[in-house]
């Protein structure tokens, strides 16, 4: 069975640096458990000389010598292992501080209850754009992440690529990721953040640099809704526009995810549902049923409006 969040495999430079240490301490730990539990079992069950006849009826009592040797040897060896681990830890720590080479791309990720906002920086203001829950990066290149807490504390974690860094309101944390090969790497919020902490996943999608550039250009472009979804656009504007932005339309809300290119994403509701027309309709109609307690309100609307909004969203490729 696949376990996309396991961290005993690695697909990125940062995770690569950490993995040998993780495996090392894991192996040390297993060996220590085996040795000490083996000693314990031997101590309990080892054969002992038969008691002398005529021993004190109240029970034998004695104070044999030699017990302290266990403590000296055991603690001595333990200390050596601990010190060695500490030194190796320091070295790894120094290694992972900065990427192997300067990161060209910076992405600002903000943790929200319960979704992720990703803002792609660029020197050209017109090329700055925002997306959500699916973060594309160029494979083989280090990418710098600025992590911000939007409301409460969350933690940004893509185990195949790197360990966790918290997103904390009032401070900016910096980390970096690098995916060696193209692929989809699952991420997950790992700091408890309320009712839907469980459903706060995201995906890091590593593309070949050329494909990444193509994706980026597409994301920069605003939406261009055609006239045949005018009814859907207007329903979207009144029902959803206060919270959601679709660039190129008057809908400019900043509360929920930017939906300008929502159909380019593989999932909706922060990895909760696959992005299929059926799930999309279900999510719009009944967000509280899908993800109880989340901040998207249950809005009463006619079936016609619902379909129109869905149809409109499906044009946002």
């Amino acid at each position: 069975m696949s376990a996309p969040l396991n961290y005993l495999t690695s697909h990125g430079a940062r995770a690569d640096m950490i993995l040998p240490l993780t495996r090392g301490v894991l192996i040390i730990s297993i060996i220590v458990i085996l040795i000490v539990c083996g000693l314990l079992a031997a101590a309990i069950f080892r054969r002992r000389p038969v008691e002398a006849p005529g021993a004190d009826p109240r029970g034998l009592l004695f104070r044999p010598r030699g017990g302290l040797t266990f403590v000296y040897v055991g603690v001595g060896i333990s200390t050596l292992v601990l010190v060695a681990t500490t030194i190796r830890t320091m070295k790894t720590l120094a290694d992972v501080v900065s990427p192997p080479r300067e990161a060209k791309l910076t992405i600002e990720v903000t943790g929200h209850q319960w979704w992720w906002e990703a803002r792609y920086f660029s020197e050209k203001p017109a090329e700055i754009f925002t997306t959500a829950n699916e973060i594309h990066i160029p494979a083989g290149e280090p990418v710098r992440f600025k992590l911000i807490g939007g409301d409460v504390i969350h933690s940004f974690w893509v185990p195949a690529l790197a360990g966790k860094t918290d997103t904390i309101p009032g401070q900016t944390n910096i980390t970096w990721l690098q995916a060696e090969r193209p692929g989809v790497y699952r991420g997950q919020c790992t700091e408890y953040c309320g009712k839907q902490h469980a459903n706060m996943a995201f995906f890091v999608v590593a593309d070949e640099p050329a494909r990444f550039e193509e994706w980026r250009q597409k994301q920069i472009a605003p939406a261009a809704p055609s006239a045949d979804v005018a009814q859907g656009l207007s329903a979207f504007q009144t029902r959803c526009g206060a919270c959601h932005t679709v660039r190129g339309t008057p809908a400019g809300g900043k509360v929920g995810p930017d939906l300008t290119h929502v159909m380019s994403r593989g999932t909706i509701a922060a990895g909760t549902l696959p992005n299929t027309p059926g799930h999309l309709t279900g999510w719009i109609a009944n967000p509280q049923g899908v993800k109880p307690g989340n901040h998207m309100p249950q809005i009463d609307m006619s079936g016609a409006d619902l379909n129109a909004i869905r149809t409109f969203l499906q044009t946002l490729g």
Partner: protein
Amino acid sequence: MARHTQLTQTPAIVTANAELAERLHKVWETEPGIKGFLGTVDHKEIGIRYIVTSFIFLLIGGVEALILRVQLAQPDLHVLSPEQYNQLFTMHGVSMIFLYAMPVLTGFSNYLWPLLLGARDTALPRVNALSYWLYLFSGLFIYASFFMGHAPNDGWFNYVPYANRQYNPGPNIDFYSLGMIFLGISTTVSSANFVVTAMRTRAAGMSINRIPILVWGTLTSSVANLIVIPAVSLAFFLLYLDRNYGTKFFQPQSGGQPLLWQHLFWIFAHPWVYAIVLPAMGMVSDGLPIFCRRPLVGYTLVALSTMATMAIGFGVWTHHMFATGMSDLALSFFSGVSIIIAVPSAVAVFAWIATIWTGRPVFTAAFHFFAGMIALFVIGGVSGFMTGSVPVDWQLTDTYFVVAHLHYVLIGINVFPVVGAIYMWFPKVTGKFLDERLGKLNFWLMFVGFNLAFFPMHISGLLGMPRRIYTYPHDVGWSAWNLITSIGAFLFAIGVLLLFHNIAVSLRRGKHAGANPWDGGTLEWAIPSPPPPYNFVVLPTVASRHPLWEDRLDDAPGRSRLDTGLALDKGRQMLGTSVVDAEPAVILQMPFDSYAPFTLAVGTTIIFVGMLYRSWPGMAAGAIITGIALLLWLWPGRLREGSPEAANEPPFAEPDHV
């Protein structure tokens, strides 16, 4: 000063006898009826109350855990709503960590300390009674939220800003904040009592190198509590102000610092974790020698490692915050300390193994639990060592690996020794044995159930399962491991129920146990089971670590005197001794039953209920009751005990307080 001589008594040295015992019994017995129930200051009564109450919270917390495990047994289940899940996992943690783990050890120490130390009570018996009432009322206060449907829902660690009113508008967090400050007062006064008791009321001759390890454990925990509890009480008070009176401490938009919460919380909570295991480790250190028929290997090293653990433990709190974006320098320092803290633990583990190796184990139920604890301690210890390494921790933290780790530590090093201690000291407390065969079955059910439940959590953790999620999808590879965990949890629960069954059966028809059923060497085994209200007819004089063994170990043959000693029978009297060498220093006049602690605790409860409702009259009423109770409590009435001005009055009159 010269005038002191008029206030001295040259105590009679007598041989224990029935007439004296009878007189002491009358003086020390708790009064019958409601006065005795509300006013008792007997450490044994208070200790039993602590243990029973904490086990009730353990049961409740256990049922909560089982409900959580049903919800997590399979992916995408809807047994609980997210909010119900969050309240339940929070209450599970709060119940186990705060309302069970420390109080149960406080209960044992309360019951056992004076017996181990050769005293008739703890140094501050009314403070002791107060600590119990405060514990009970604060526990009820926190649980009141549960029955009102507004239980705390932000985990035991209660991170801000999620705990701020903006994100958490109900009264849930107010209950928790105030309840924690409230409970903190109980733990503080109880700790002060333990520290003063250890300093003042040991048997003559029980110099600091002769103190049982359990006493070292509780003493170390108590000192730590006194230093770190203010941190968490302060944090919760600041949060209460933020939530109710508009202060800005944790409001990031006003310059407040969410991380200040984490620092204050973990400055407290990490030493607290040591505080709830060190006394239990002491139980193992004192219990193993009895069942291995030899003194503990490396007494001095084990005692020192107890203190060293806590000393280093003050410096590791940030290892709960490695992912918060700390500076590399801080990361390196705290990582190093967090790894090195394993050294003192290794001392204890190897000392225990050496004790078993060189001894002759007697396979009692208690021995099973103590030996089983060593295995669990090792597993919990090495997983802790792994999280100490920062880069590794960036992966491990907040996954089920840590859930596995902390349960190995808390159940392994707290619950297993405590159950072992119940098997060992139950005969002392009740005069009856627990059933040994049931006891061994009890151990194996708990041991197998525990490992079945918690070992797979390591694996679901390594597979990336985050903590505190109310459900998980089917396609992430955690389903099978969670099912095994849930099955193990129920098996473990059956094991715990078997303990209660054994207690219920044995209370009615357990085998009769004499004064010293296991042939133990320390002072509690020198007195009848159950102990009389005054504990010791004559106060013992101690010349070695094992006064009851010294003849057979050639330690100090015959030099400890248990049957002949100070009678101290002029009212409730006890011997005060010097701090290091335990030389007799003063005859302490101990208090009688008193309503003051109960009244004070009621007043304190009213203050906290008033704070919950932001009611100034409520707070004022509580403060007045508390103040009056304190005034009456402290009213000096001791002049009649023999000062120059009252020389013709008998020197043993009752102190005239409530």
